[in-house]
């Protein structure tokens, strides 16, 4: 399975995502520049955290026009896995690949600390290795992670099982304690917490590992299924 880690001007967690794929999965992974126009070699696209374009104007607002984003949309359409973390989540919502938007934290302050997440849907390609309702410790580090969507959208999210993670104790004011959502098809996930920072004992928690193993297991299953067919 081949991973792409997108790099926008101002991406910071590109290296963290890269290291996580390498250390947890040992699968091939490439940095892919924001100007790239072909993502066809990749099976999973990671949109990393950071401050793309300084997060000036709004987080993710400028990056979503990068040439590579057309390819991300295409990949999402094709059913490939797309995972946006933190700034990556913001970019995906700005690009309309995920519903909602992210506002300033209620505290008005950047918040960096461990949070407890509840796995709300373990039927997605990103969460299948977790138990339903499992509580995991994943750090957050953001100033604008306060998820918003209107009532109607929220109902839809609930009905479709698009809410992947909720915070046990809401750190930022997110609607319905939402920490991460998927698209309707379930192959695009955006989340504010950083699973790639939770893959090594020395960093404090390894609860993010299962996100990466989920992805590869989901892919293998698809792949094997395809081979059988």
């Amino acid at each position: 399975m081949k991973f792409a880690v997108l790099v926008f001007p101002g991406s910071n967690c590109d290296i963290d995502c890269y290291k996580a794929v390498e250390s947890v999965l040992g699968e091939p992974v490439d940095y892919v520049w924001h100007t790239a126009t072909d993502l066809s070699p990749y099976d999973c696209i990671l949109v990393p955290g950071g401050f793309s374009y300084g997060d000036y104007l709004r987080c993710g607002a400028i990056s979503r026009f990068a040439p590579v984003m057309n390819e991300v949309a295409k990949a999402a359409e094709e059913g490939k896995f797309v995972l946006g973390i933190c700034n990556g989540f913001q970019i995906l919502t700005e690009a309309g690949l995920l519903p909602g938007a992210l506002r300033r934290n209620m505290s008005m302050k950047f918040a960096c600390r461990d949070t407890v997440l509840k796995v709300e849907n373990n039927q997605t390609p990103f969460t299948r290795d977790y138990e339903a309702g499992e509580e995991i410790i994943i750090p957050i580090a953001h100033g604008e992670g306060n998820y918003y969507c209107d009532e109607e959208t929220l109902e839809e999210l609930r009905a479709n099982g698009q809410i992947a993670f909720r915070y046990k104790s809401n750190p930022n004011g997110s609607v319905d304690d939402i920490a991460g959502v998927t698209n309707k098809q379930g192959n695009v996930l955006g989340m504010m917490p950083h699973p790639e920072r939770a893959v090594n004992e020395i960093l404090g928690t390894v609860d993010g590992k299962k996100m990466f193993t989920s992805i590869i297991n989901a892919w293998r299953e698809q792949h094997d299924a395809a081979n059988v067919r």
Partner: protein
Amino acid sequence: MKAKVYVTIKQSVLDPQGVAVQGALHSLGFNEVESLRIGKYMELELGDVNKEEAEGRVKSMCEKLLANTVVEDYRYELEG
């Protein structure tokens, strides 16, 4: 031609920044502030374009980039 663009958070959306600033004003004794909304204010120099054209262009800038219409409203004025 000059454009002034105002981007504000929708009435229906809670605006953390507005809430925080209002709270701060109250604690400074400005209790008369019953509500406060914060938005962005942008001034654009557009060079030599006619008003009609500018109208459409600025609208399109707002829709595409300057505002996120999921949570924000915008309006603009053209001058000169």
